[in-house]
């Protein structure tokens, strides 16, 4: 069976969930060989083996933490040359997409980004994408070179599929351009203890109707009762009520959780572009005419300050 190269997104050796999902999809098109680089790379092996990696290539060097993107492209290219895979899969983070695109250019291949599904086809992997604010679903293929495809979080279930996961040190020589963009400082985002927005199974969002930064505690309380991430509409972010890192929408993050709960969000096209692929959509809004109600599986027309705390209490009661 052909090998498929999977680029691993990890934080100091802890593999992030989208990479484990990627291994599920990778197994549909071949035998996953994982590449992990940077601090803690070798520590990823156990989790990757548990989820189907037949081999784990690792490399650590200070360049990965000191310079932007290009050292990682160099490593992925080295792995590509060592493995000669049938496809290369990368998680669809901002950085993942940049790495994938630069690799594709170097190896004379096409790149597809933000796939939401992947299947084996007669002429190579076929990627499903959701476009135009999720109003269309497309099927695309890379038709020249080795397919390089990035996949969005929540596109597949994480499945255990124990494999050998033999660790091999990869030899990487950095290109002259690898040190072009220096990372001169890094401030880790303060952990809220909540799941990361794009990875979360449930997202609870607030919009203009929340009417103030201090009122976001109502949204956060609901999110915490469900173990959910907190999102915000552009209106709420632009008003300074919630950080931009939590913005859901065309100029923010695109999410497709199992459950999306929109509170006080009218549902402008800008917002819909970022959440319309959510599996189940729920909205609470005072305005019965709000366009968000066209999308919902369940909607409550009412004041979110009445409905949301009652919902939170009820969830806590039911969960005991």
């Amino acid at each position: 069976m052909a090998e498929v190269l999977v680029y691993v997104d990890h934080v100091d050796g802890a593999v992030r969930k989208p990479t484990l999902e990627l291994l599920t999809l990778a197994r549909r098109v071949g035998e996953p060989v994982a590449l992990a680089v940077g601090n803690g790379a070798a520590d990823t092996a156990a989790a990757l083996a548990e989820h189907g990696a037949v081999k784990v290539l690792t490399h650590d060097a200070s360049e990965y933490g000191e310079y932007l993107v290009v050292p990682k492209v160099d490593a992925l290219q080295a792995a590509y040359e060592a493995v000669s895979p049938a496809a290369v899969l990368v998680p669809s983070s901002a950085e993942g997409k940049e790495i994938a695109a630069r690799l594709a250019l170097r190896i004379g291949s096409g790149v597809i980004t933000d796939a939401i599904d992947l299947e084996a086809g007669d002429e190579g992997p076929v990627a499903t994408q959701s476009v135009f604010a999720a109003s269309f679903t497309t099927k695309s293929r890379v038709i020249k070179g080795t397919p390089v495809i990035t996949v969005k979080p929540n596109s597949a279930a994480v499945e255990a599929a124990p494999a050998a996961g033999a660790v091999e040190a990869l030899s990487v020589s950095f290109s002259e351009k690898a040190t072009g963009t220096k990372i001169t400082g890094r401030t880790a985002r303060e952990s809220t203890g909540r799941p990361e927005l794009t990875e979360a199974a449930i997202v609870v969002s607030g919009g203009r109707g929340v009417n103030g930064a201090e009122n976001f505690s109502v949204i956060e309380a609901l999110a915490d009762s469900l173990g959910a991430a907190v999102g915000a509409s552009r209106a709420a972010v632009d008003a300074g009520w919630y950080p931009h890192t939590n913005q859901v929408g065309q100029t923010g993050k695109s999410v497709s959780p199992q459950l999306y709960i929109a509170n006080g969000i009218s549902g402008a096209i800008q917002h819909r572009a970022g959440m319309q692929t959510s599996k189940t959509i729920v909205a609470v809004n005072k305005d019965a005419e709000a366009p968000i109600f066209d999308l919902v599986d369940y909607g409550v027309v009412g004041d979110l300050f009445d409905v949301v705390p009652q919902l939170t209490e009820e969830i806590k009661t039911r969960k005991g």
Partner: protein
Amino acid sequence: MSLRIVVTVKYVPDATGDRHFADDLTVDRDDVDGLLSELDEYAVEQALQIAENADDAEVTVLTIGPEDAKDALRKALSMGADKAIHVEDDDLHGTDAIGTSLVLAKAIEKAGYDVVISGMASTDGTMGVVPALVAERLGVPQVTLLSEVSIEDGTVKGRRDGDAASEQLEASLPAVVSVTDQSGEARYPSFKGIMAAKKKPVESWDLSDLDIEAEEVGLEGAFTKVEAAAERPARTAGTIVKDEGEGGKQLAEFLASQKFI
């Protein structure tokens, strides 16, 4: 010495319109009004601010696209850019991201540049890979997804906000920069700006001006192919209730029925 800034912009179908695919599965541009991609307005804004803070700078806006794409250039010129380059050629129809980066890189080299500034992504394709591809082709540093940017003494500095951390970046010019919608509100063109824009030079280049062969771009040159596009079926109407005091409990009941609780 003058700082040469090239801003890449894209003319995109209005996202509030009813966007479709044409028969050849490229984006249908005839059916929907186009405009300058909102995310590129932020790039124009940062270019103008950098130029205003420099001793001597020139801002050139560059786009690829059919005749209508001139509207995007016109908007950027009316915001305050100095001149524009329009790459137009029938053979460009259906060009993918890899091909787009080739045309942009050749045009940027021909125009001459110290820094290229782009939006973080287009609002139609939304891939967000073109700035990185252009940097790879030009062989210069990529300083991308900046929410803050400044250029001083031949060095570009900026802040990139990622999921896990905020990073401070630094690179020597020449470089390719991309900015997010957090970089700063884009200015509205003034009446004076709109009038002045009419007199600003717009150069038109085709593929032969850039030494690009037709088969390197367009549908023929594309490395990817859309094989099918289906309109998403309309959602079946959901249940909508009015809160009469029990709205939260009713919603909890629904969530429980769907096994979310």
